[in-house]
C-alpha cells in the first residue's frame, strides 16, 4: 500500500481550503473551507496510521476526535454567523469593518 498518493491529495485539498478561507467573503463559505482543511488532515491521519500499522490506532482515533471537534466548531461558527446576520442582515466579511486600525 503506497501512502504518498493520499498525502499529496491531502496537501492539495488543504491548500484549496486555505485559498477558500483567504478569498471567500461569505462567512459560511469561509467556514466550509475550514471544514475542508480539517478533512484533508483526516486523510493524512488515516493514511499515516494505515502505513505505520500503528497498533494503538492513533491515526484513526485521532480522525474520530477531529470529526467531533469539527462538529463542535461548526455549531459555534454557525451560531456566530446567525448572530451576525441578525445584527446586520448580511454575512459578508468585508462589511465587518467597524474595527480597524
Amino acid at each position, binding site marked *: 500500500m503506497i501512502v504518498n498518493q493520499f498525502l499529496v491529495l491531502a496537501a492539495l485539498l488543504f491548500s484549496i481550503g486555505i485559498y477558500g478561507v483567504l478569498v471567500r467573503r461569505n462567512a459560511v463559505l469561509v467556514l466550509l473551507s475550514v471544514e475542508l482543511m480539517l478533512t484533508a488532515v483526516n486523510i493524512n491521519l488515516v493514511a499515516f496510521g494505515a502505513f505505520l500499522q500503528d497498533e494503538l490506532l492513533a491515526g484513526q482515533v485521532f480522525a474520530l476526535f477531529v*470529526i467531533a471537534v469539527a462538529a463542535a466548531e461548526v455549531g459555534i461558527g454557525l451560531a456566530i454567523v446567525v448572530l451576525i446576520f441578525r445584527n446586520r442582515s448580511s454575512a459578508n466579511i468585508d462589511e465587518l469593518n467597524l474595527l480597524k486600525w
Partner: protein
Amino acid sequence: MVETVVFVIFGLAALFGAITMVWARNPVYSAMGLMMTMFSIAVFYVSNSAHFIAVVQVIVYAGAVMTLFLFVIMLIGVDKEEDRTENLPIQRPLALVLILSFGAAVVVAGRLAWTTGIRNPLDPVNGTVEAIGDELFKRWVLPFEITGLLLIVAAAGAIALAFFKDDDDAEVDPWR
C-alpha cells in the same frame, strides 16, 4: 491496480468537489461540492481499512454537519451572490501564489520520505467498530471524556449566542 483506479476516480471527484466549493458563486453549490468531497474521502478511508471512520464521515460529516450548513445557508438567503470585486485587486492572485507555494513546500518536504516513524511490522490496522471501541474506551478514554466537555461548550455557546427570547435583551434589573 484496482486501488489505483479507485484512487484516481475518487481523487479527481474530491478535487472537483473542493474546487467547486471555493469557486461556486451560489453557496448551495459550494456546500454540495464539499459534500461530494466528503463522500469521496470516505472511500479513501475504506481503502485504508478505516471502516468505522468512513461510516462516521458519511453519517456525521456529510449527513449532519452539511445539513446544518445548508439550513444556515437557506436561512441567510441564497439569492445574494457574492460581490467578487476586491478592494485590493492583487489579493486573489497573491492568495493563489501563496497557496501554491504552500502546497509545493509540503510536497517537497515529503518528497524524500513522508513517514519516518517506526513501522510496526505486525498486523495491518483493523478499523472495525470493535477495534476502535476497544482502543477508544481504554487508552483514549481521557480525551474522549474531554470531548464531552467540548460538546457542552458547543451546546451552551450556541444557545448563548443564537437563542433569542423576546424579553432577553431587556436585561431587566441588572443590579438586583
